[in-house]
């Protein structure tokens, strides 16, 4: 009795079992890549010329210059930080009613559709595009940035809050309602205690996101550190630009660790 066992083994394919489909997809990908790279127009001479500049930027990043443009940098940072806080507070205040209205289990149907469409509009448009419009309407400066971030916060926070409210324990709502509580008392005593920890966590997370975004919307004139960075790069002052980028990275890291610590502490 000698059965011949195979001495080699090939791992079976994991995602797409049919060999023909697999080859077809691989071929399609290769074809797409060939066409895409073919239509790519790259000015290699310009790239080569830019590498020297890239080296200077890397040097600027390693030897950042915080001092010579400190006035501009500190003004940009103050604008960014104040914009972040005020827009998060206002955004959270606005997104709580929208979020409650967008929860299908506690809101009537007409209000549900209105609130869900507010959320959809806010989520579909990117911060930078909203910022372009608001700068055109409200003029340059951090006020337009504040409005942009507040509006963007609604889309993020109200959606997550509404989804959270929809998933609450219905028994508690039932219990509070059976004591004869009104709608407001029901929200206050059965919904709010269940979603509050998550709402606080999401608000802190959004604070963190709003700071990152505040660094970007300055490029289109909405104030903040992004405007300072844009100016520094336009002036080819790579050491100042490096300093600004390092500051952004440092603040984002502090915000990320701080908010995750706070969230752990609060929950």
């Amino acid at each position, binding site marked *: 009795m000698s059965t011949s066992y195979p001495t080699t083994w090939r791992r079976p394919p994991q995602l797409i079992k049919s060999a023909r489909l697999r080859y077809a997809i691989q071929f399609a990908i290769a074809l797409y890549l060939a066409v895409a790279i073919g239509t790519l127009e790259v000015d290699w001479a310009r790239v080569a010329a830019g590498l020297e500049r890239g080296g200077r930027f890397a040097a600027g990043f390693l030897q950042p210059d915080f001092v010579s443009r400190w006035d501009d940098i500190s003004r940009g940072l103050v604008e960014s930080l104040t914009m972040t806080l005020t827009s998060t507070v206002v955004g959270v205040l606005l997104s709580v009613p929208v979020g409650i209205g967008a929860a299908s289990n506690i809101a009537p149907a007409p209000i549900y559709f209105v609130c869900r469409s507010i959320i959809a509009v806010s989520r579909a448009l990117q911060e930078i595009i909203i910022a372009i419009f608001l700068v055109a*309407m409200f003029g340059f400066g951090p006020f337009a940035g504040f409005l942009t971030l507040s509006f963007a916060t609604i889309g993020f926070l109200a959606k997550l809050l509404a989804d959270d409210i929809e998933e609450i324990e219905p028994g508690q709502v039932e219990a509070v309602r059976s004591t004869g509580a009104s709608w407001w008392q029901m929200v206050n005593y059965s919904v709010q205690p269940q979603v509050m920890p998550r709402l606080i966590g999401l608000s802190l997370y959004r604070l963190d996101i709003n700071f990152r975004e505040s660094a970007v919307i300055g490029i289109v004139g909405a104030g903040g550190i992004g405007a300072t960075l844009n100016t520094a790069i336009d002036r080819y002052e790579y050491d100042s630009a490096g300093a600004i980028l390092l500051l952004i990275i440092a603040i984002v890291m502090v915000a990320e660790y701080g908010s995750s610590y706070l969230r752990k502490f609060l929950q």
Partner: protein
Amino acid sequence: MTTTDTYSAVWQRRTPRKRLLIWTGWVALVALFVWCWQLMTENTIWAFVTDAPRQAADIGARMWPLEWGYLPELMGPLWDTINIATLGTIGGVIMAVPVAFLAARNTTPSATILRPIALFIIVASRSINSLIWALLLVAIIGPGLLAGIVAIALRSIGFVGKLLYEAIEETDRRQIEAVRATGAGGLQVLTYGIVPQIMPAFWGISVFRWDINIRESTILGLVGAGGIGLKLNASINTLSWDEVAVILLLILGTVVVSEWVSAKLRRAII
């Protein structure tokens, strides 16, 4: 029967001390908000702010008959935008994989030197928006698609790297041990023990990032990194809001389609 008198008629959830603490916290937040608000609006020109409804009505009126004739001209830039997102995602994923393996606690070759470096790469890439990467790269390698692709790729490293290294850390140890027990070397453990476990997560993350990248690459042109954003910038600069409206609708349509494609693909994978 004097003990009944000590019970309060109204139920309170928290002790007075706790209520005072929470109340102080809220007052502090309000004070901070007012202070920040004053700092922020120091230089705001309120005449512009009160003028905003009129400006909005003006822009809205100028958007109206939409300039649909502009649409065919936008197809080339749209193709560029999709290429920026796709090629950028591929580049980012290729760079993110080694970073993720260096950053995961169970696969990193040295926890003291290489892991912090990998984590710093991830944090740096995540905290700088793709638009800022594009701004830098346009200054360095010149305007065009390449700057956009590299910006998207650099930005994707952090996102893909972070999610992938978390997936690697969550792999089932027993499967890895089983492969190791057959006498497999380090590379064989990687390909037969770890890679099969993270493959669905890997494809899911990549497709998800591709979806985000489509969204981000539509605006990279604002700083000169190619794609449909270039057209958007040109139309905004000439204040032709009817063209801007068409471009925005096209961007919206592209984003919705990419979101649908990515949702379908992810459902098929996971």
